[in-house]
């Protein structure tokens, strides 16, 4: 239970190389006390490395790790009092389920009565009560993962709980249940939780704040709404939301956005520095509308394809050489061929060199 601060952290696994590849590039990051965070990013982007730096399993090549402003960089893992759940189940196979869950408490000399109470509580939470006396060796993979998670939850005085894709092997129904329980624990004990995943739905439903990473860099930190409405980079736009954000090349001419053969007004409050190149317009599929007639915000297009997803349908519209995707309600009327697509100005994001342009 502390604020965790990563200050000028960078890490490479090959410190002796001439041009080392950085698993984490220089970054500053603050995890607020009691927050729920999701660390979202593709495989190999440095998520596990980040967690290991916080827990002390990996010593960062550069930078400091601060807990409540105290420098913990040189403290060994046990002193940091972090709970961490690894990416794949790690259980002590020669111990019973109960001893597995109690192990973190035994190591920290928690009195027996208290220990048993905590173990029973956690077992209840994870539906492991009837398996407590079983040897851990005999369990299935998903049950082992639950034990891993349980060992992370059994202490409630930890600095933070770091979970590295903890529910990948758990079936969806149980997954949902556990995420809900984790949220409850967070509210109950104001426990800082970091949840690594590469599933955006999981991230969105679990966390108050999402940290998106790519290739060793943090690309955006924000609430699920932030990520959805104003992705900081085109990468976040592609990675978050389904279907991905639409990105269309455009230029500025006559004070208007020249886009796919048409022109729409530049959204108000946007300052586009002169000489800006590689301009792209981004808009979420759910924000694009179909129009029946020409208006200031509209472009002429042809319906190419309609995909049904049950609770919504995705319509692909060709606008000159560009393809725009629209996310519509299931019953929405779709014109046979030619149509107008409307890009509401308050929903448009502009990107120069893949970075969002500031809007006042």
């Amino acid at each position, binding site marked *: 239970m502390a604020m965790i601060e990563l200050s000028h952290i960078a890490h490479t696994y090959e410190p002796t190389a001439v041009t080392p590849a950085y698993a984490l590039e220089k970054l500053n990051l603050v995890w607020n006390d009691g927050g729920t965070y999701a660390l979202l990013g593709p495989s190999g982007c440095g998520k596990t490395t980040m967690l290991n730096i916080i827990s002390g399993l990996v010593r960062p090549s550069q930078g400091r790790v601060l807990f409540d402003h105290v420098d913990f960089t040189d403290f060994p893992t046990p002193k940091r009092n972090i709970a961490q759940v690894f990416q794949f189940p790690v259980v002590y*196979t020669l111990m019973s389920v109960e001893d597995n869950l109690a192990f973190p408490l035994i*190591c920290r000399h928690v009195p027996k009565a208290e220990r048993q109470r905590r173990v029973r509580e956690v077992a209840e939470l994870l539906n492991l009560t009837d398996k407590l006396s079983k040897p851990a060796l005999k369990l299935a993979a998903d049950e082992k993962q639950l034990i891993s998670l349980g060992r992370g939850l059994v202490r409630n005085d930890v600095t933070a709980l770091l979970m590295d894709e903890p529910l990948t092997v758990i079936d969806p129904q149980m997954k949902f249940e556990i995420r809900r329980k984790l949220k409850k624990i967070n509210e109950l004990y104001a426990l800082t939780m970091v949840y690594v995943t590469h599933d955006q739905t999981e991230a969105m439903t679990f966390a108050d704040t999402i940290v998106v990473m790519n290739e060793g860099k943090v690309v955006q930190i924000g609430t699920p709404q932030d990520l959805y409405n104003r992705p900081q980079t085109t990468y976040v736009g592609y990675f978050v939301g389904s279907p991905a954000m639409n990105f269309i090349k455009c230029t500025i001419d006559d004070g208007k956005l020249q886009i796919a053969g048409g022109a729409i007004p530049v959204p108000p409050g946007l300052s586009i520095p002169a000489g800006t190149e590689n301009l792209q317009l981004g808009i979420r599929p759910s924000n694009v509308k179909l129009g029946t007639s020409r208006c200031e915000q509209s472009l002429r297009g042809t319906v190419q394809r309609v995909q049904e997803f049950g609770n919504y349908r995705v319509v692909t519209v060709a606008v000159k050489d560009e393809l725009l995707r629209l996310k519509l309600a299931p019953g929405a009327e779709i014109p046979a061929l030619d149509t107008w697509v409307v890009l509401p100005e308050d929903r448009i994001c502009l990107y120069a060199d893949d970075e969002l342009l500031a809007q006042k």
Partner: protein
Amino acid sequence: MMRTTYLLLKYTAILIWSSFVVLPFLWALTTSFKTAHGITSGATYIPWLQYEPSLEGWKVLVRTGGAGINIVQPYISSMVVTVGASLISLALGTLAAYGLSRFTYRLGFIKNSDIRFFFISQRIMPPIVLAIPFFLMLQYFGLLDSIIGLIIVYIALLLPIATWVMVDFFNNILREIDEMATIDGCNPIGAFFRVILPNSLPGIVVAGLFCLIFGWNDFFFAFILTFTKTQLLPVAVVALNSSVTPWWSLSASALVSVAPLVIIAFVVERFLSSGNMAGAIR
């Protein structure tokens, strides 16, 4: 047809191999119950029918003075030396191996793998190279012809084996287990004793077996480094030989020398096959 040929070949091979292994024992067993007369009358195997069994060969082994060479004392000495050296080697070797497997050492250009090779290089050298230094060192400390001296020398011989086996074993235990234990609040030493060591029992058993076999069977150093006060079993067995080769007592002593190893082999086999080896991790 193919199948029959295959089976035929297979069983022939097994038969040849087993006779190769078993017959010497059978020979030793029958011979140990024979007298000089029984031995000269060709290869015979069935007691009472083909030869008259006698316990003379066995009695010699426990008799002192006169016509007997007592191997009870060497037997005990051998056990003390082998078990003592094996236990110490296992303890030191396991710790060394854990260090070599989990931590990075650097001494100038010397790295972990070099240290590992240094351990095993002790066994690559022909024993005769080591004999003279060992002799001189023991002499310097006044430990020639003593149990302690032999234990020290045997540790030098067995430690590399124990270390080598255990490094390999530890390398196959996931590092995440150690890491998990440190997350749960153990320091590296706590993690070793609480989590890694219990999981390494099969490895320790195998390493221990190697130590016992090599220690028990060593003749060379036992012969060179002892004279009169201390005698180990292999040396005593060889000393049974006199102008007339006493085949009966040689056979009996050979059987009693292999007996402990056979018993241990059976026990260990049981232990390893009872699932203690399986799924120690994950």
